[in-house]
């Protein structure tokens, strides 16, 4: 990895978690790994933020959880997205896109 690992942008962790578990159920450690790999090693999720974030999402009803066996037969808690979570993800994607575009506009603004 050439780029230094960085914490996830404030306020985006929940959206990123939703995205990760929207493809298939994943356990906490797996979510962290997936975020690191997919972001090309940019994001390193501190598990001190990860598990509280998972709890918040559970509480909002955007993800559900169940205990399952991993391939190695170890018990792990898997999180999956719920219908309302999918709706939420779609909304956040939209607003994120418009925000990014807006930020880009400002940055590209030439005086």
């Amino acid at each position, binding site marked *: 990895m050439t780029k230094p690992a960085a914490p996830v942008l404030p306020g985006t962790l929940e959206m990123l978690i939703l995205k990760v578990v929207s493809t298939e159920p994943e*356990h906490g450690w797996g979510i962290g790994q997936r975020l690191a790999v997919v972001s090309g090693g940019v994001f390193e999720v501190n598990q*001190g*933020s*990860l*598990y509280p974030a998972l*709890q918040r999402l559970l509480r*909002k*009803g955007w993800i559900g959880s169940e205990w399952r066996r991993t391939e190695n037969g*170890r018990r792990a*808690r898997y999180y999956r997205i719920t219908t309302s979570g999918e709706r939420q993800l779609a909304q956040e994607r939209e607003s994120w896109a418009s925000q990014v575009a807006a930020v880009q506009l400002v940055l590209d603004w030439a005086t």
Partner: protein
Amino acid sequence: MSWIDGVRERLRPLLDRTGLQAELDEELAFHFEREVEVNLAAGMSPREARRAARARMGGAVRSAERVRAMWRGFELGGAGQELRVAVRRLRRRPGFTLVAALTLALGIGATTAVFILVRSVLIRPLPYHQPDRLAFIWRLDRDVETWLSARELVEYRAATESFEELGAYTDFEISLTEDGEPERVLAAAVTGNALSILGVRPLHGRLFRPEEDLQGANTVAILSYDLWQRRYGGDAGIVGRTITGDGQRSTVVGVLPPDFRLPLDFRLERPTEIFTPAAIDESATLAWGSRSWFIFGRLTPATTHEAATADIRAAGAKWIEEGVVGEGQMDRGRVAMPLRELLLADVRGPLLILMGAVGFILLIACANVAHLLLARWGSRRGEVAVTAALGASPLRLVRQYLVENAVLAGLGAVLGVGLAIIGLRAAVAFTPVTLIRMRGVELDSAVLAFAAILTVGTTLAAGLVPALRLSRLDDQ
């Protein structure tokens, strides 16, 4: 996941804390193992691998703590923090806190005291078996104690059908002179069925047998619990022993349970302590005019007190018509008086008025505290403005003040209930005439529940208006 799962997930911190904790521990342990595996795969020694994982997991403890803090937050809705803030604020102004809490304590204490009184006197059932089916045969003007003749008892038994059983008792005094100090105690001569009509079960021994009632001579006796404890040391061997009352020897056949009193004894300072058979000789010609008995009975299940009244009046009218008894001897104004009515009619009105009066005292206390709060919170405008500017919503501000006020009311309630208990105990100990059925003054769940309701009501009554006014600074 349905909304039900969502609700369950929300309630879990409240209902299943250990389960949640265990799951979190297992989840974090799993995480740790994965980290170790990765490190091993990268070629570290097992020891190194574990150390590196622990270093990376430095947040593990923190993570668990943060999650737990979240659970706590769900639980109290942030009230825990506000409670601490409220206590701190109140402690900063001890004078105000003391005055406000004492004011509320007086209001809550007085109301609770009267509640205890009303409950033990008016609401709690009378201590007899199915007390609502008991009736005393009474004259209409109940200010006078209605003694009736033994002849009337015997005739009612034959002429009426409203009663399962009719019995009678009469009170007198007796001097106990056998071993120990001579002592004068209240006694009652009771018909053989009188005690069983009331539904009392003897603590030791038995009640009277029908033949003992007929035998006449006072050869048997039953003791009250207090007399048994006081004079005979609570010795269970008393049953079968002989005692001497007014120079006459009787065999003790039973001891009654601690709280038993004859119905009319609730008006007396000292209850009846020794019971002997009435020995009404039904074969003899009894005089209508010799009135010395309280007659009472248990209604049949199908009868009402009104029907029983009609029944005894019809019997009386018939006797007069037949010329068995003169109208003067047998006035018609008899009623089958419900026991409850007989015992409580005189106290119900005053007690309810008292209840209303203390209710007003509590309201006045609330109003005073509300004024105190307004005055004091008025001086806190600046602080409120800062809190609001920092982003506290009006709702949150109101909540904060109500929490503060609830702490005050809680203090007041604790002090008040204490005052109520002490005051009532003193009142019971010093009143010359025993308040009807006001024996032990105890804190029980009903009293605590009542005080809790008062506390919540007081919090809202005294605090809501000031809190609302304070939170809407921009309106002012």
